[in-house]
């Protein structure tokens, strides 16, 4: 029973070691692309078989001493993380950047293990360990392209910001532990709810919140994001944009809903009667993210930086749902995070193809895309419109669930009405810049006119991943309940 609860992590960690061994033992003389292909096949087969063999039909399991929660719904989330990890691994074949293929794969898989831990844990130390496993792997992955100065710069920035924020978070956790004497989230909540909340506990919550804001790249802690997205190789960037964000939100939803629910640390964000607490903090971060993310995205000319800034805005929307602080809202945030992660994977894959074709990721390079590949142009449109929240794509229901959960949280009036209104206005602005790209791709301009020669076509496997992502977004947009019941594990 207990083994079942940690099986996904064990499988993935074992696979990481296996991949490293295989690569170092037998593949060092092979070419880079052949090594990548073989390791991708190995990973896909291993994770695929593990998924098929995995029994997903059981009652939720809890290991109380470790604060470990596992249920079929959580396992599905981990399956999604594994799938997104595979997607970013396959995407690494789009460019050639390293001789250390085994290490690259092992690090990515270890980061995935960290991400999976975050989905299950309710223990502060374990959560921090998972986050560090994820983050440390990502620092290295960001800087993996050693011949490129941008990559090193991005890695360093990510590391420095990340280090400080990890310290902040740990300090917050320690204050919280000092105030309550507990490390397990449910018990922390009990202690906080039992008596008057000490200011030190609120301080702890705020420090930890700042650390989380960094992980989910919410403004004003987002400064590393554009550089990391731009400097990292496509595979790593896709991983940061999809898996890392999804897992961080999964953990944050757990922490806020299970551990920080008591009103003393929650605070209040309603205009006029605001009270300090994580809700007030995240309301501020959400507003800042939505404004800064959307306005900055409007001004970008590089596609990767554009994705990064629009990601900041999306973090803001998800925070709006989180602030509602209900069970429904937690699931709506997860729904949002999943659809966002899928869309981001697709967009980063697009940026990789764009770079290969045009030599840079300038957005103007999308001109005439429709002429060159109708399939890619349509998929690009699906990703962008889904991120923009246009029905009938999954991104629409993501926003819909989040906003309606926020409006419905009438039991505790946190005053998020104004936040929802502001988010809706901002998503109109967002729609404009998403459509600008779609228009460029569809504009009937000749290649000669646009001054660009047709470049190399994308790998078929990248196309397949892109197609699968687009299909999922359409499918879950038409039948949003399917994904929701998957996440609820029912």
């Amino acid at each position: 029973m207990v083994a079942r609860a940690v099986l996904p992590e064990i499988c993935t960690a074992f696979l990481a070691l296996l991949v490293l061994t295989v690569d170092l033992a037998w593949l060092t003389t092979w070419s880079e692309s052949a090594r990548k292909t073989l390791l991708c096949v190995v990973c896909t087969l291993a994770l695929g078989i593990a998924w098929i063999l995995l029994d997903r039909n059981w009652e939720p399991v809890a290991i109380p001493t470790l604060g470990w929660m596992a249920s079929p719904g959580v396992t599905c989330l981990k399956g999604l993380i594994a799938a997104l990890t595979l997607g970013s691994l396959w995407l690494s074949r789009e460019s050639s950047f390293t001789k250390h293929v085994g290490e690259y794969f092992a690090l990515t898989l270890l980061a995935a293990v960290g991400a999976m831990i975050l989905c299950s844990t309710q223990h502060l130390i374990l959560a921090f360990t998972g986050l560090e496993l994820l983050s440390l792997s990502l620092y290295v992955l960001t800087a993996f392209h050693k011949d490129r100065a941008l990559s090193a710069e991005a890695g360093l920035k990510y590391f420095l910001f990340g280090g400080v924020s990890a310290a902040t978070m740990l300090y917050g956790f320690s204050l919280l532990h000092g105030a309550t004497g507990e490390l397990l989230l449910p018990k922390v909540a009990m202690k906080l709810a039992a008596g008057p909340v000490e200011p030190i506990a609120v301080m702890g919550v705020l420090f930890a919140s700042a650390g989380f804001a960094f992980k989910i790249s919410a403004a004003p802690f987002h400064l590393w994001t554009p550089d990391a997205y731009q400097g990292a190789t496509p595979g790593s960037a896709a991983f940061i944009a999809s898996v890392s964000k999804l897992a961080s939100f999964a953990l944050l939803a757990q922490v806020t809903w299970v551990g920080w629910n008591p009103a003393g640390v929650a605070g209040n964000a309603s205009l006029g009667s605001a009270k300090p607490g994580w809700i007030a903090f995240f309301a501020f971060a959400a507003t800042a993210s939505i404004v800064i993310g959307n306005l900055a995205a409007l001004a970008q000319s590089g596609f990767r930086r554009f994705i990064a800034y629009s990601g900041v805005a999306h973090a803001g929307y998800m925070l709006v749902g989180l602030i509602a602080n209900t069970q429904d809202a937690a699931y709506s945030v997860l729904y949002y995070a999943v659809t966002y992660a899928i869309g981001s994977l697709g967009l980063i894959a697009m940026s990789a193809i764009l770079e290969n074709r045009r030599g840079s990721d300038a957005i103007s390079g999308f001109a005439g895309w429709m002429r060159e590949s109708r399939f890619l142009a349509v998929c690009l449109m699906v990703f962008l419109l889904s991120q923009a929240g246009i029905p009938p794509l999954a991104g629409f229901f993501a926003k819909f669930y989040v906003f309606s959960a926020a409006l419905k949280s009438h039991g505790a009036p946190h005053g998020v009405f104004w936040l929802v209104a502001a988010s809706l206005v901002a998503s109109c602005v967002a729609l404009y810049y998403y459509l600008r790209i779609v228009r460029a791709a569809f504009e009937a301009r000749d290649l000669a006119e646009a001054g660009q020669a047709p470049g190399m076509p994308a790998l078929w496997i990248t196309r397949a991943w892109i197609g699968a992502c687009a299909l999922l977004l359409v499918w879950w947009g038409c039948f949003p309940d399917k994904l929701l019941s998957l996440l609820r594990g029912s």
Partner: protein
Amino acid sequence: MNASSIPWLTLLTAIPLVGGILILGSHLPDGQRPRRFGLLFHALSLGVLALIFTQFDPAVGSMQMVERWPWIPSLGTEYHLGIDGLGLLMLALSCIVLMAATAFSRRDIPSGRIYHGLLLLLQAGLHGAFTAQNFIHWFFYYELSLIPAYFLVKLWGGPKRGVAARTFFLYTMAGSAAMLLGFLATYAATGSFDFAELAQRGKGFDGGLAAIYNVRLGLPELSTRALGLLIFFAIFLGFAVKIPVWPFQSWLPLTYSEAPAPVAMVLTGALSKLGVYGLLRIVLPIFPEQVWQTQDLLLCLALASIVFSAVAALAQTDVRRMLGHLSISHLGYCVLAVVCASRITPLDGNWEVEKQAALTGAMLQMFNHGVIAALLFGLAGWMEERVGKPLEMGSMGGLRQKAPVFAGIMGLAVFASMGLPGLSGFVGEFLIFKGVFALVPWAACLATLGLLGVALFLLNYLRTTWHGALSGDSTRFADLTVRERAWVTPMVALILLLGVHPQLALKWLNAAAVLLTERIAI
């Protein structure tokens, strides 16, 4: 399988949707073929529509041909389609206008495949929205119709198409966002998106939606009345931008003058009707109390649309901008009728007949205005094609001598638009005035100013451009070709037929108007 078990309404939405995707995904070269494929799918829709007409019972006012399946249980949303007489006429209008727009399009339009594909998607959006019975479904298609419209303006428009498309898009999106917010709040309070169910809850003075909002949403800063009005205005704004109602109209003249003429036909003929339809189907039944509370304000907005636009049209030099203002003015009458029909009269007598007249008039005006305005924009498009540049008032004169048939058709369309008895434009306006005069006399009196203005500038247009001595660029102006005459004939026939025998359209509307009047009565 008998006829009643076929999901006709789904079929009617699916045909253009599938057609649009097929054409967009095809490898058709530029030229005639994309247009022919477009016409084929529009003809198919018309065929299905004809079958729907044969199955529809005009004596029943409630929803017919209902399709209902579970869809998104977590949002309490069903796949729920249905039409009443109003929905039926709107479907007919969208089929006619889209068919005409495709036929009026240039044969050599660049990237015709994408153009005609987008037109079909636009039609799918319209059909989906006109048959939707809950908000999610409605919003799906409402947005779906917006995106193709944006691209049609943006990619094939005139020299200022960028600004036009952007303005159009931002205005409409802002409206949509407000509407979405209003419905989210409504959902949060009631747990339902179903129009009929919400209308049920909206009834009653002491209960009503406002009270539910107050209990469920818990915004202590606002009174019950203020909260109800706030949410009502959010939803009203979405439709007000779409129609558009003054002061939300400033996107329209630019968009209508920059869009390709066939797209302008669709925008004014079919897309703007989504706004009025929304008022009739959503705002009036669900928020009768709020409409009544703000009746004076809304009346002023409607009157401002009618009068200001007529005056603004007088000052235009660009023909298409003038026609755009004309559209605002004409749809203002519909809004006027809808707002007047909300009058609640518990004490001073029975106004049912007048309310029904106003509502029927509004519905009929929607249909007739759609056909007439589409014809006007289509003809303007043909003129531009002949001249090769945007039409300026006074740059041409005496066209009648060169193109007598063209002049005749144009004259007919203009007079129908002015509301000359015997042509279809008259009947709707007459019914509206009949109802409004009894319900709110001062509004009816002020609205006649609009009629005057419209007559003034339309006659002026006929005089300067079509009559008098030949002048300007008009020397090589060709008359309508046989093919063009063939395409114009059905629309002209419709205008004449509904002018002399309005019962043809009214018989579908009466039952729906009666039912709507009962619904909003308290």
